[in-house]
Structures are given as C-alpha cells and as structure tokens.
C-alpha cells in the first residue's frame, strides 16, 4: 500500500499486537482475586519512571484525582502521557513529571490556556508534543482494544495536525478515498475513576462513559479508583451496567470524592472555588508549587486531603450534584 503522507511526529509508544495478546494471556489473571489496595500501593506497584500513562475521564469530570496526586507524591518521573486533561495533567506538568505528550487538549476550559502547560512546553521541559484530535487518540485506543494494529479515519486530513502526528495517509484499497491510518495505542498504565466497583474490579459508570471502554481495553495495567466498593452480587444484579470487567483490572482503590474538586455524575457536583484555586495559583510557577505543597506533598494520603477540604465543602458539592429527577 502506497503511503501518501506521513506525520513527522514521534510514535512515542511503539506497539506489538502479538506481544499484547501474549501479555493478556499470561499477565492478566482470569481468577476472581481481591485487588483492593491503597493509592500508595497501586501507584508504587504499577506506575514506573518513564512509563506511558493515561487518565480517564478528565480533570473536572470523573477524574482519578486521588491517584493523580499520589503519582506526584511518589515523584514518578519522565512520564509519557496521552491526553486530554484539565486539572490532573496540569498538576503533573507543574510538578515536572511529563517528558513526552501525545496531546489532544490540555486546557482549563472556561478559564482558558493553562499557564503550567505554557511553562512546561515553551521552556522545553516537555521534550515532544505529538498532536492528535480527541477522536483520533480515542480511535487509537479503540484499535488496541480491537486487537488490530491501526484504524482508518477521516480525521486530521489536510491539516498540520496530520503533519505533527504519527499518522499516515493512504488510499482505501476498496474505494480509493483517502484515509488517515491511526496507529494502535497500548498504554503501559491507565488510571480510571468510576462510581462503583467490586473488589475484583468489575466497574460500573453513571453518566457519560468518555473513553473508559477504549482505554481500559488498551492498557497493560489498569488501576481503578471507585467512589464505592460494592458486593459482587450488586454488580451481578445490573450486569448491563458493567463497562469494565474485572479481568482487565490490576488494582481497585476505594476513593470517595476521588474526582474532587471535579464532579461525579449523580453523586457530587464540581467545587468551582476548588477549581478556581488551582487556576489562580498556577498563574505563576511559585504559586503552582505552593498549591502542590498544600494539597499534595504536605498530605500523607487522600484521607488527609479530604480532611483538609472539610466536610462542609464536600457536603456542599453533594448538594450541587446532578439529579435524575
């Protein structure tokens, strides 16, 4: 097949589909094992310096913030990261943990361009930014989830996005139209936050599923944090709600208010003041450092974080939740 155009971006996570199959055969137990552990244990066990890691959903929505803060606490360095991120990746950038990015969007949404992204990229601290659209990065994970080496798409064509990605353009051998080929993305580690899971790792999500289905099936190690740990019988009562089956999962962390200051559909709403605090403090490198000291380094764990936030604010965010009625 003739390659019509090749992106000059680095394929920062090369893949081998047969090795992935072998990994899934030998490294992922089919047994029902109790996988509950703390944030500290999960991050120290599965996240390593230089690993390729992703988070889901993002920043202010169903984000694994307690795990993201633990990654900073343990100073896991030289991370290669994919995303979309708002708070979580912004914190990692501010902490100087990210070396390479498959970037789609790192922004503060309503609050604009994140100063910590600007500082990290413009200073060269982040060595490489490979560009992808939101659809294309998700389809890359979908390819891995399907067990195929690439997927064709009609995204990024004709633009600098294609040029600065690692995609390739070819003609469809059946109809002749041009398509972008998106290479599969197999992450070393994925961390995903959900409403409920059982101790084995069966997960159920309420509200939008973002790219949880794709990412959970496109990684070698999967750390789940869950607002609630429920009995296996509870999962089996609503099997239609299970979006991540246990055998994909390596660690289950109980993290109530795990997405705070972001939201969790039908459980708690976002704490605008909590989000704004990061927006304001991250305006300068010193402010960002101060924020990290206050909310990460000076605290032992997630329980200490919740103590610092206080019951009043957490109750207020529960009051502000999306309701089904």
């Amino acid at each position, binding site marked *: 097949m003739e390659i019509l155009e090749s992106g000059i971006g680095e394929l920062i996570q090369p893949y081998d589909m047969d090795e992935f199959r072998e990994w899934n055969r030998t490294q992922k137990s089919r047994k029902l094992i109790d996988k509950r552990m703390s944030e500290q244990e999960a991050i120290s066990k599965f996240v390593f310096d230089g690993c390729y890691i992703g988070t889901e*959903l*993002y*920043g*202010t*929505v*169903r984000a694994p913030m307690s795990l993201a803060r633990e990654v900073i606490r343990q100073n896991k360095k030289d991370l290669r990261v994919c995303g*979309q991120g*708002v708070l979580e990746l912004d914190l990692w950038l501010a902490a100087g943990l990210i070396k390479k990015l498959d*970037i*789609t*969007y790192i*922004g503060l*949404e*309503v609050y604009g*361009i*994140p100063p910590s*992204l*600007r500082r990290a*990229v*413009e200073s*060269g601290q982040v060595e490489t*930014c490979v*560009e*992808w*659209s*939101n*659809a*294309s990065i*998700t*389809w890359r994970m979908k390819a891995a989830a399907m067990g195929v080496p690439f997927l064709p*798409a*009609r*995204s*990024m*064509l*004709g*633009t*600098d*996005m294609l040029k*600065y990605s690692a995609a390739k*353009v070819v003609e469809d051998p059946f109809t002749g*139209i*041009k*398509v*972008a080929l998106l290479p599969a993305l197999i992450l070393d580690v994925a961390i995903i936050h959900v409403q409920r899971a059982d101790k084995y790792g069966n997960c159920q999500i309420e*509200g*939008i*599923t*973002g*790219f*949880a*289905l*794709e990412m959970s099936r496109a990684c070698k190690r999967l750390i789940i944090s869950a607002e609630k740990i429920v009995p296996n019988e509870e999962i089996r009562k609503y099997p239609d709600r299970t979006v991540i089956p246990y055998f994909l999962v390596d660690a289950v962390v109980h993290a109530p208010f795990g997405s705070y200051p972001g*939201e969790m*559909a*039908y459980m708690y*709403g*976002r704490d*605008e003041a909590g989000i704004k605090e990061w927006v304001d403090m991250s305006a300068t490198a010193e402010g960002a450092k101060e924020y990290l000291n206050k909310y990460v380094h000076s605290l032992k764990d997630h329980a200490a974080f919740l103590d610092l936030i206080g019951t009043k604010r957490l109750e207020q965010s529960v009051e502000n939740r*999306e309701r089904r009625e």
Partner: protein
Amino acid sequence: MNATTYTKTELMICVASRLFEDGTTCFIGTGIPMLAAMLAVKTTAPNLVPVFEFGGTGAILEELPRAVGEARTFHKGISAAGICDTMETAQRGFIDYGFLGGAQIDPFGNLNSVVIGNHDHPKVRLPGSGGGNDVGSFCWKTIAIMQHDSRRFIDKVDFLTTPGYLTGPGAREVAGLPPGTGPAYVVSTMALMDFDPDSYRMRLKALYPDVTVEDVIANTSFELVMPTNLDAIQAPSTDELRLLREEIDPLKFYI
C-alpha cells in the same frame, strides 16, 4: 448595564444564536458556543439537538455547562454515551453543524488552536485541537466564533488545526475530507461573515451596529471579499439580553 447597552461579546453570542437551525444536530464546543446554543434553544431553535463530544446528546440546557463533559451536557438528555459514539456519529454524516472557536483564522476559515509561532519551539503553546479538528472535518457546516482583530484574522495561521476550505475550492476533497462539508459562517465581535461561493474566501456579510466597513478592514489582516449588498445586524433584543444575563450566564463566566 441596561437593555439598550450591551457588550461586543453579548452581541456576538446573539448573532451566533440566530444562526442555529431548529431541529438540527449540532456539536457544541466549550465557551461562547455553549452560551449561543442555550440562547438559541430559548428563542429560535427549541428543538436543537446539542451534541457534546464526551458523550452527551440531546441535553435540556437549563444551566450553562462549564466543561464539555460535565453532567449539564447530558442533563435530561436522550443519551449519555462516550466519545466514540458522538465522533463516529459525526463521521458518518449525522451532525449538521459544528460551532468552534480558535486563536487565529485565515481567509479560508482554517483555524489554529495549537501554537503561536513554531510548533517545536512555540512562542505560545495553546491547549490543542481537542475535538476541534474532528468537528471541522466531519460536520456538514461549521461556524467559527472569534474575537475580531488583526492578530487573529490573518493571512496564514501559524498552525492549521481545524480545516476550513484549506487552500480553496476542491482542496478539502483532494485531502480526503468528506465532500460537501466546510465552514459556513464566521461570527466575530464586529461582523458576520460567510464564504464566497466561487473563491471560498471569507466574505463580509453583515455589519454590527456602529461598525463600519473600514473598521472591519482595519482589523482584518487579509482581504475580505466584499458583498454586493451588505446586511445589517440587529442589536440584541431586550429579551435576548435578559435571557443571557439572568438565565444563561448569571455568574458571569463569559459576559
């Protein structure tokens, strides 16, 4: 501020909201497009189907979403799925409109939201495409909403993030983008623009109250196509301003 005075941003949101067609599907990006969509639903397009990229389709927009994934993007919605569902729906031709923003725009409606300056050593790193490139590639018609000044309306964008008409007639099709798609309007803080059907270059369509053609030319770094007849944009109505200020953005995130 009373009902007879209004800001440029308020007027821009009103102009954008009047472009929504009732009964169509529409991809809504973060920010001003969300306000415009909410205003449209409350005025001229009550049956608009808003689609938010992370999975929310058909939400009842009662409160302003501050994020494209928050629960307000599927509040009383018809579905809360995932990004593959919304993007694949767009890729197979189901999404009529896409509303987008950007830091720079060129005469062919190409948008930049990645970097100012050189990609590898940028002067300013911007957030990135997000779903912007996908929306601009897949939706039948796209509408860009932009601050109007000569640094943003430029002859060549520093980084072509979201495809407009690329280099002109036929270029999208040559690149492999789905035929029949492309930018329809640009809504700025000074004027409404569309695209000349022959050259596919941006064309002035209508001026805002108190804005002259000279003002627009002075704030645009490329040559705009001039229409045979210039339309005039009506100032925001009392009702539009009341909805915007009291119901849509009472906490003043944007206005």
